Structure formats: C-alpha cells, structure tokens
C-alpha cells in the first residue's frame, strides 16, 4: 500500500467517523451534544463567537482567495 493511499485512508476514516458520530448524535439528541448545539453554545460567549467567525472566515479566504499557496 502506497504512502498516499494510507494518507487518504486516514482522512477517509476521520471523515467517516465525523459523519457516523454526527448521525448518531442527531438521532440521540437531546441526550448527546450535536455539532450544532456545540456551535450554538460557543456563539453565546462573546470571545468564542469571534473565534468561530474567524475560523469560518479563514477557511473561506484560504480555500477560495489564497488557494493552497497561502502558506508558501
């Protein structure tokens, strides 16, 4: 198995775990915290709210404006 295949497989496992846990918490809510409820909780704190905004802004700027060369 090549190194790149292992790398992609690790990303795939992480992504699948996110989806599986996301579906589980949605089905089991309100017993378990969903990603939405965590973000809602963060948005209630003034500082965390801006951290969420900065993270979302960074992802958009990095992906669409700067591309992969942002750190080069």
């Amino acid at each position, binding site marked *: 198995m*090549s*190194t*790149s295949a292992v*790398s*992609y497989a*690790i*990303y795939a496992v*992480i992504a699948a*775990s*996110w989806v599986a*846990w996301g579906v589980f*918490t949605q089905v089991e*809510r*309100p*017993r*378990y*915290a969903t*990603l*939405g*409820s*965590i*973000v*809602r*909780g963060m*948005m*209630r704190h003034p500082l965390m*709210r*801006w951290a*969420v*905004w900065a993270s*979302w*802004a960074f*992802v*958009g*700027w*990095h*992906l*669409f*404006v*700067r*591309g*992969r*060369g*942002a*750190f080069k």
Partner: protein
Amino acid sequence: MVEATHRAPRVSWRAVIVVAAALVYAWIASGLRPFTHPEAVAVGIPIIAAGVAMLLPGRRPGQAAAPESRRGVLVWRGLLAAFLIWELISYRSSPREDFPTFSSITDSIMSTHPGRFALFALWLAIGYGIFRR
C-alpha cells in the same frame, strides 16, 4: 369533523428567493480566479456580512435557549484533534503527493467550476447556519 392540527412546514417565497440568490452568488464567486481582487471581494462580502450580523442584537428577552447536553463533547473534541493532528503531520511532511493536506484535497475538487461552486455554496450555507440571528 376532525380538523388537522399538524401542518406540513411550508417553504416561503422569501426563503426560495434567498436560496436562489445565494446559489447564483456562489456560482458567480466560484467562477472568479483565486489571488484576484474580484475573488477577494466576493469572499469578503459574506465574511463582513457575518461580522455585522454578530454585532446585531441576538435573541429577544424571554427566548433564552434551553441548556444543551454535554454528553459526547469529548468525542467531538477527539475527532477535531484527530483531524488537526493529521493535517499538521501532512502539512509538515513531503512530498505533497504522498501527504495530501485538506487544502490539496479540496484543490483537486475545486479544479472544476461545479466542484468549486459546490464547496463555495457549502461554505456559505455553513456560515448562514452559524451566523443567522
């Protein structure tokens, strides 16, 4: 006579227009080239709009949110940590072909206009979901 007490949710024209406008905006913005001023403006507008939305007053008094469950938060933190750690390992490793980062994976998705449009629309939708007041 039995009267129905549960109505199916109706989609308003306002919602349809907003979604259509957002999709048109995403299609136009995703057609612009990276590292250009027009693309910076197209991405900057939603970022500034979200920032302004955060400055506006939130929920009205009496609409306080119910306390949320904390069960499973540790799992979410673990999943985020797993992603960030692997992203950092990949970023620090080379060659990029063997150690793709999240950015290099999305770059291949965004090599076509429909792929770039899909990610831009997803980014806008996530932002709307987070910052709507």
